[in-house]
């Protein structure tokens, strides 16, 4: 499980939070393919109103605070990995996300291009420029996927 091992270098001070973080990677995140899928999964663990993270399994094993810290660290980590990805890598991530979603690719692309739900998948209080970079690349990536499905007519 190379990703979880590598992530262990993100040393949380709190012992329980560190254990919760390792558990999160071992049981959940390592089984999710693609960082964009992981980002959306982790964002879904966050309460829209309070911004706090909740995960019933982690909370019962490690407590609310430790589970929240572990989820937040993992969320940030995945965000930074995606922010540093090239546009080509991000398009591959988007393709993987579309494939794994189980939804119709046409519908999913239309929804993501229109509503831009990925905007709320970012962690709180991150560097605005890094957020801008990732959002811009996601927007471009979606347009790439759209244009591959609907190629523009050649110039006369």
């Amino acid at each position, binding site marked *: 499980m190379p*990703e979880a091992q*590598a992530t262990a270098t993100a040393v949380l001070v709190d012992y329980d939070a560190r254990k919760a973080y390792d558990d999160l990677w071992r049981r959940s995140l390592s089984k999710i393919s693609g960082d964009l899928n992981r980002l959306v999964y982790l964002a879904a663990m966050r309460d829209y109103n309070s911004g706090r993270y909740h995960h019933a399994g982690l909370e019962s094993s490690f407590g609310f605070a430790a589970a929240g810290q572990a989820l937040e660290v993992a969320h940030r*980590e995945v965000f930074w990995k995606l922010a*540093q990805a090239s546009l*080509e890598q991000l398009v591959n991530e988007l393709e993987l996300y579309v494939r794994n979603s189980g939804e119709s690719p046409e519908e999913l692309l239309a929804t993501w291009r229109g509503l831009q739900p990925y905007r709320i998948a970012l962690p709180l209080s991150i560097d605005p420029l890094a957020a801008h*970079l990732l959002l811009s690349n996601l927007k471009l990536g979606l*347009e790439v996927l759209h*244009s591959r499905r609907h190629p523009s007519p050649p110039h006369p």
Partner: protein
Amino acid sequence: MTLLLLAILVALLLGFALLRVLRADAWSPDSPASPFVDAHPKFIAEAVFSSRDWTFIQQELSPPLNSLFLLERRALAVHWLRDCLAGIRAVRANHLRQSRHSRDLSVLAEAKLLLLFSYLSALCRCLLFTVQFVHPAAPRAVALYVQNLAANILPPTQSPMVFSRVPVTEVSRERL
């Protein structure tokens, strides 16, 4: 356009000369954490001004995609440069504030610093103007030069993974 490039070249040469003089003094700022550095992990400038993504977009053979890419990258470049300017202003203001309480000020060192801050700001403004008219990847070398120059005079940054709400002692960027 040629004149603009010449102006940038002259500014760069002046900058190198200035840097050689300034390095002799090895100034370290008093500010413990600069907003400039925090706001600029190195990969961002590399990504914004890189031609790697542009090459990828061109392979898609879609003119609307090309236009959208240039629009997005210009907006990012402007964001990066405005943040640079704000950061330089903040560090300069902080230094001035600290200097007021200092009793062993060197006029020469202060003049050199003023020149350096002005030089960095001028470069950023020049780039802000340039990216409106040329391809965002064109001024890449100058943008990275600005970033390196700023890194020389500002304190070392903390990892962008480190944040206040969760106590983290160390975060490796190896897997990122």
